[in-house]
């Protein structure tokens, strides 16, 4: 499969306003630091990590909702980071986003019909009103909402229904890539499953590539073809789903996977449980060398001085860890 979107050494920084009148230089928060990956057509890449690890900033940086500080986002041979606003606007037809909070991502003063039709108005102005209306009807039907609901307002819908509306809005222009920024995190478990299945069905039918951001490993395992683990803005490990979940090589990934609850506690293997000590360090002042070293059970002196590079340990399975030799399954 060919890659539709290639991200190279992307960094997203935020300037934290200097406190006080006399501090001249604002602090820089490096939310995403030198992350690279490629997204292939029809594929789901799961981005996993704790709250505050830069997953959402990565998604927003890819779509240029936040302008990246460095790196390239290659889309159809062009670097999105260097495009002018007008050129970028044309690309937005194919690059969409679904947000976490379904209600606050819909304008409360617009009807569902207007919300779903808006991308068509922007990108396909040549379509007549009837054709637009027909497509909105078909799209609403596709995401499991009745077309009669068009004249209603977002506050009349439940969270799951609002997320369906967001999906309809994102899908109506038949995009190539959708960034799903924790799309199911605020929903009930049963509805999470419905929305996940809907996304998978839509992907099967349209071949859209998904960048699926989540902190829930079980959902990522269900949704993704490949996985990228982030910690403090850096990529820790990336690999195909089976290889990653079967044999995670980064101590952080191992800790994350061991923390996933097992349905039957009697089946849980206590020897595999790995609980991390300490707190997430401040992203304003990350540790030197490997950012994970302060909480890593395997840390050695070299981890303090040298930042590990992402090295392949199996085909397509990369790990950024100095002790990758010692983390191989026995």
């Amino acid at each position: 499969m060919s890659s539709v979107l290639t991200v190279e050494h992307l960094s997203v920084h935020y300037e934290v306003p200097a406190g006080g009148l006399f501090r001249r230089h604002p602090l820089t928060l490096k939310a995403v630091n030198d992350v690279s990956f490629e997204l292939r057509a029809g594929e789901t890449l799961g981005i996993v990590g704790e709250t505050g690890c830069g997953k959402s900033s990565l998604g927003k940086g890819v779509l240029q909702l936040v302008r990246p500080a460095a790196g390239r986002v290659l889309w159809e041979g062009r670097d999105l980071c260097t495009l002018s606003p007008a050129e970028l606007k044309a690309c937005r037809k194919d690059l969409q986003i679904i947000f976490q909070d379904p209600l606050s991502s819909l304008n409360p003063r617009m009807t569902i019909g207007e919300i779903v039709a808006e991308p068509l108005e922007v990108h396909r102005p040549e379509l007549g009103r009837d054709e637009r209306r027909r497509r909105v009807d078909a799209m609403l039907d596709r995401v499991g909402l009745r077309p009669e609901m068009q004249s209603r307002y977002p506050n009349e819908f439940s969270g799951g229904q609002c997320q369906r509306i967001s999906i309809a809005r994102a899908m109506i222009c038949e995009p190539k890539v959708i960034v799903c920024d924790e799309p199911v995190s605020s929903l009930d478990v049963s509805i999470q499953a419905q929305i996940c299945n809907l996304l998978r069905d839509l992907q099967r039918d349209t071949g859209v590539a998904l960048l699926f951001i989540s902190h829930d490993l079980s959902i990522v395992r269900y949704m993704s073809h490949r996985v990228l683990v982030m910690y403090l803005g850096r990529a820790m490990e990336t690999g195909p789903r089976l290889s990653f979940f079967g044999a995670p090589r980064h101590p952080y990934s191992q800790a994350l996977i061991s923390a996933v609850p097992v349905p039957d506690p009697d089946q849980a293997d206590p020897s595999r449980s790995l609980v991390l000590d300490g707190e997430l360090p401040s992203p304003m002042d990350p540790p030197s060398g490997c950012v994970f070293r302060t909480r890593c059970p395997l840390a050695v002196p070299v981890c303090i001085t040298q930042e590990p590079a992402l090295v392949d340990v199996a085909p397509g399975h990369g790990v950024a860890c100095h002790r990758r030799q010692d983390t191989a399954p026995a």
Partner: protein
Amino acid sequence: MSAGPGLLGSETLAAAAGGGVPRSLWRQAARRFRRNRAAMASIVILALIALSSILVPMFWPHGIEDASWENILVPPGAAGWHWFGTDANGRDLLVRTFYGGRISLTIGLLTTVVALLIGVTYGAVAGFAGGRTDGFMMRFVDVLYSLPLIFFIIILVTVFGRNIFLVFIAIGAVEWLTMSRIVRGQTLTVKAKEYVESAVAIGLSRSAILRRYIIPNVLGPVIVYVTLLIPTNIIVESYLSFLGLGVQEPLTSWGLLISQGAGQLDSAPWLIFFPATFLAVTMFCFNFIGDGLRDALDPRDR
């Protein structure tokens, strides 16, 4: 159209309870507002005051400038159609009170419209642009804020002479400042919402985002402030007239009538009683309406 549950049984359909009519936030607010008795009564009273201010001076047997030496300082009573009595020049107070109502209400409304237009545009642009533009625009507002209103108006009056339009301009030019601050604050809140980001993500232009996303979502507090600004402006006009800087004879307004009546409080108390009562009732009505709107537009705030 039936409003049954959605296709998926596990999702409850909030719309099912609402019947066939879509319930926009505005519509829901209107329903809550109609249930507020104080606010609804205030609307009726205000409408009566406004209507009589328009009609009474047209049909009343006395005009506002009809002075009469025989009827100086007549106390209120049915005699000679002087229900509210007459002033020191023998002019009928009832017609002057309603005529003053015309001027006071007009000034209140027009100055508020001026403040609304300038304030909403300025505040929304500043908040949406953000950064340095926002900084400059709001510092400019701070500078204007520091000029006292009276000082500003005295300068205008000395330069341009006394003129009722000057009063509009002066009040409008000062009162939009607060409006722009309110709108800017609201814009900053709305700008951070994900739906604005989703508008950027679909490639909507900045002006379309401002028009479709920002302004409709900041209007709630603005409407409430408007109902409080109208009475404020009426009061401002009243004290300007009281100080002799506002409306000039032979025109009159509630503030001017009160100022004239205050001089004869001992000998002819009705001269201050009637205009002051109308002014006070109008203030109360606007404030009740403002309270009602606030509760209706943001039920969580109660």
